[in-house]
């Protein structure tokens, strides 16, 4: 007697393709009324069928866009999102370029490995959490706990550039990577607990930072020439992605920048009795 079981392997490939249409060069998906899983099913199907560019319209909070796009063959895709991307956009992202024409909710780039995310708007809390590679550009500001526990390693250094300000706990537990906060709206002036527990990486903040705004483990110093070169490179890339930003590179760079770095990469070395 044979017993066959239908084991769930993602979605069967017979999902109706309603809402998917091929435009000039890019395939379009209308996300109106689609559940998160349905939208991501379609994206994965398109990736596996060799599609290189996708435009998704009417996105309204669907989560995990980009997360299910890993293949052992490392297929790559460019995705344009119109609307508001839901939580965990680009979580665990492995390559790909995602542009959101609108705002993004919490958890953008959670534990992201590589690729690029561009948000033409604002991002929510825990932006770039534990990100270890790739780049994220946010045109406007972001919420609390951005760049938490960002880290880098041999050959991989994540970069997060935010045009507006960042709220409290920016770079908490940060272990690596580069964060540049341009703070156009001055929101970061009131932020506290920046870099608490920081033990690696660097945060550049346009303007100034007071000692009472940062964790005890953080050293505040003015950006030196090498720092400013790095900042200039990423400000240029930021402006390339957001031509609508009215400030010029020169205007942005005319401001002072401070550098936040950890005092030690071994913050707990003296804590224990052996």
């Amino acid at each position, binding site marked *: 007697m044979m017993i066959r079981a239908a084991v*769930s392997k993602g979605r069967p490939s017979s999902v109706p393709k309603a809402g998917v249409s091929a435009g000039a060069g890019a395939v379009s998906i209308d996300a109106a009324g689609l559940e998160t899983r349905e939208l991501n099913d379609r994206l994965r199907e398109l990736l596996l069928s060799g599609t290189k560019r996708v435009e998704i319209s009417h996105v309204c909070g669907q989560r995990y866009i980009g997360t299910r796009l*890993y293949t052992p063959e490392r297929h790559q895709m460019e995705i344009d999102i119109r609307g508001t991307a839901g939580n965990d956009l680009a979580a665990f*992202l*492995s390559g790909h370029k995602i542009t959101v024409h609108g705002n993004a909710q919490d958890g953008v780039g959670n534990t992201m*490995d590589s690729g690029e995310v561009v948000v033409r708007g604002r991002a929510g809390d825990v932006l770039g959490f534990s990100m270890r590679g790739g780049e994220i550009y946010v045109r406007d500001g972001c919420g609390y706990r951005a760049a938490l526990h960002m880290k880098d390693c041999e050959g991989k250094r994540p970069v997060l550039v935010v045009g507006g300000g960042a709220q409290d706990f920016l770079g908490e537990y940060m272990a690596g990577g580069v964060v540049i906060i341009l703070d156009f709206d001055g929101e970061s002036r009131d932020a506290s607990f920046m870099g608490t*527990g920081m*033990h690696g990486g660097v945060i550049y903040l346009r303007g100034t930072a007071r000692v009472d705004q940062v964790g005890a483990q953080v050293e505040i110093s003015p950006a030196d020439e090498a720092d400013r070169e790095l900042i200039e490179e990423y400000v240029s890339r930021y402006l390339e992605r957001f031509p609508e930003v009215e400030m010029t590179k020169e205007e942005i760079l005319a401001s002072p920048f401070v550098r936040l770095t950890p005092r030690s*990469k071994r913050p707990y070395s003296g804590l224990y*009795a052996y």
Partner: protein
Amino acid sequence: MRSFVFPEFEIIRDEERCGSCRGCERQCAFGTHTYDPVADRLVSDDHKCAGCQRCVIFCPQKAIVVRPSPSFYRPNASWTREKIEDLKRQAETGGVLLTGCGSDKPFRIYWDHILLNASQVTNPSIDPLREPMELRTFLGRKPEMLEISREGEEVEIKTELYPNLTVETPILFSAMSFGAISYNAFKSLATAACRSGTYFNTGEGGLPREMRGEFGRCAIVQVASGRFGIDAEYLNVAQAVEIKVGQGAKPGIGGHLPGEKVSAAVAETRMIPQGTDAISPAPHHDIYSIEDLSTLIYALKEATNYEKPISVKIAAVHNFAAIASGIVRAGADIIAIDGLRGGTGAAPKAIRDNVGIPTELAISSLDRRLREEGIRNQCSIIAAGGFRSSSDVIKAIALGADAVYIGSAALIAMGCTLCQKCYTGNCNWGICTQNPRLSGRLNVEIASQRLSNLISAWSHEIREMLGGMGINALESLRGNRDHLRGVGLYEWELDVLGIKGAGE
């Protein structure tokens, strides 16, 4: 500062037998034994001895005995030697007391107060040497009901099943990371798991790239608060993904792998710079609620194309059953519950010995709670923390666990003697160290054979005990508390365990 602490151990060397071969000097990474060339004899510094017994077992002349130091303070029921010496160490360093392995405190070990049933006359017992005995276990979410169609001889399950782990015996290797343990120890666990039809758990140290192809098929990979070593390939080569929220040895706190242990290979696998402290924060900073946990569970389901069960590991603490119910409703397919006696490579002693509840009580509470809420089918339970023998395992199954994780037991199989000095990185047995001179002592072929032998021996004993109860499939015993009786337990303990007293 001069230390006022007694040596923990006393080393006795039989000078008649000692051939001054200096083997003990080479074996001890703590520098306990040194050779005095003038006197042509070995001298030992009791203060440095960890009591790991490596030199004793490897002395070719059997010339060494290491035993607890007989020195004592004036006997005092409150101020025991351990309390006095811990206090002195803190006065001398100003530091948090660190320790390794599971708690050694005399909390009641319920396994030793629970007895199994056996068949007599009616419902005859079964001989596992002659009759098939089913230990195979499926871990993951089960459907509410099964729809089956039948055409002639062919039966087909119509219901779409959820992804499950298939394990040939209900014993899995608990999470132990490369970094906490040596590469050879890690690879031995992986090798034995694949050979024995079970799984090893990577812990939060990543899975070395060169191991992914061969050992992914028997790996459970962990996503913990430090998010070390995670990329999409890591998640996809494994058979299940486990979100680590808590650990029995240190509920409520995170962990730090000290920079000394972050070697080039560990750094590469964890994807962090060499020599930095690898800090796992106490909470996941993207999880402050059950809803947030659900977000991560589904992020991992998305990242693995809904092909793998997602486990959530929590420490057994006072109100954990209600939390676990929330975790199941958040989408977890497996709950791993780690009790009071769960092991660790490093934990503050104050936490290890004072926080959490015993595994035995936790299994029963969790199983009962999920049954009462009608959601027991939605997840499997893997119990962890202090399993020492096959009889502990079978009692756990009868209390409601689907399978167990063994950590300390697996390390002991490889040579560990529970000396509790894991955090020093000087493990003379080559298990809990990144020093290549020490880790090279652990031969992967031999260590994995010892592990496979253990799994095989325990599995056979479980079959014997099952057969004795007249049961031929492990799943008939799951949560079947009628086969258990308690001895020497208070009424409330019997109630929490859900078992009767012996003779009742």
